[in-house]
């Protein structure tokens, strides 16, 4: 595949980067990235990935655009209120870049459908908004050996980690179990500043781009912690846990678990 004239013009600012070049641009155009959640994290990530020329972007979301989403979910616009988020996101992506093939999944990921959805993608970006989905996505990626960019936000805090199954710590190595339901409020109850979602979502997009291009060091084996009130970033080490219930030596999670059972997993 040769780059077209208009592609060379469109991507010129990244093609001239050291270690990217036409070869890197072709890698981006050949890449398939799945974004779970077209919300606060998924919106900025999708915009940057589309702009950079990721060739195939899958988007999973079962919701419709609401007016209260627009404060942070910057891929959507007023005229899309009431439309499925995946359609709104697809149209916005293609308005920026027609090179991108967008595959929409107007559904929630579940233990029954997730393996089939992720199987054709090179890397998964988790921008979901609840613990059951996050643990499901982690487990599915570990079991399928799919690289995963994880990002989470809560009020003025953000976190990000990149997971290469079999090589680096997974999300359960970091936090083996989710909190019991009700103990931690969701964004809806807790509130979020849109720019905080932007910071973490863009870090996730950057992780995906580095992974596809094979550039620098992805955020494996460490958790990036962002404090928006201090404008500070810290990193802490995340070791692979031999007792991890999904990627440890004696895994207890060998198939995907339905949402309701999350709090019953036993750590060996």
């Amino acid at each position: 595949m040769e780059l077209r004239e208009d592609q060379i013009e469109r991507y010129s600012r990244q093609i001239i980067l050291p270690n990217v070049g036409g070869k890197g641009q072709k890698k981006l155009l050949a890449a398939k990235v799945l974004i779970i959640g077209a919300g606060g994290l998924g919106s900025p990530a999708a915009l940057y990935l589309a702009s950079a020329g990721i060739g195939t972007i899958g988007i999973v979301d079962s919701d419709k655009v609401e007016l209260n989403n627009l404060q942070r979910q910057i891929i959507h616009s007023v005229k899309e209120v009431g439309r499925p988020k995946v359609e709104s996101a697809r149209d916005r992506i293609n308005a920026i870049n027609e090179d991108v093939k967008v595959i929409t999944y107007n559904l929630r990921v579940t233990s029954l459908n997730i393996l089939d959805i992720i199987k054709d993608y090179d890397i998964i970006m988790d921008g979901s908004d609840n613990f059951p989905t996050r643990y499901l996505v982690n487990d599915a990626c570990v079991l399928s050996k799919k690289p995963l960019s994880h990002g989470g936000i809560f009020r003025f805090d953000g976190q990000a980690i990149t997971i290469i199954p079999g090589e680096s710590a997974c999300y359960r190595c970091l936090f083996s179990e989710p909190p019991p339901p009700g103990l931690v409020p969701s964004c809806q109850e807790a509130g979020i500043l849109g720019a905080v979602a932007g910071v973490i979502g863009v870090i996730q997009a950057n992780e995906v781009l580095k992974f596809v291009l094979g550039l620098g060091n992805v955020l494996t084996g460490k958790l990036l912690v962002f404090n928006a009130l201090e404008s500070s970033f810290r990193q802490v080490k995340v070791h692979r846990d031999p007792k991890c219930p999904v990627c440890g030596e004696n895994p207890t999670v060998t198939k995907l678990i339905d949402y309701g059972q999350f709090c019953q997993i036993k750590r060996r």
Partner: protein
Amino acid sequence: MAIKVMIPTPLQKLTKNRADVEANGSSIRELIDDLEKSFPGFKERICDETGKVRRFINIYVNEEDVRFLKQDNTSLKDGDEVSIIPAIAGGR
């Protein structure tokens, strides 16, 4: 021994909205007990009924996870920085 403790947003209600506080202790366990003294209710949020740190919360001394050191027996020295980091799930 003065240890700087970084407090995550969900617990800042207990620390009067402060993102970092000073506390004392020669081990993580002593530090948590000292934090409980200054901020009643703190320990219950971090530890389960058996006194173990909850599985969705990690404690780090400097950059290291105490689960991979000596858990709550991990010793502390003057100038150490302790971070309490809970799992967070928001994204939408």
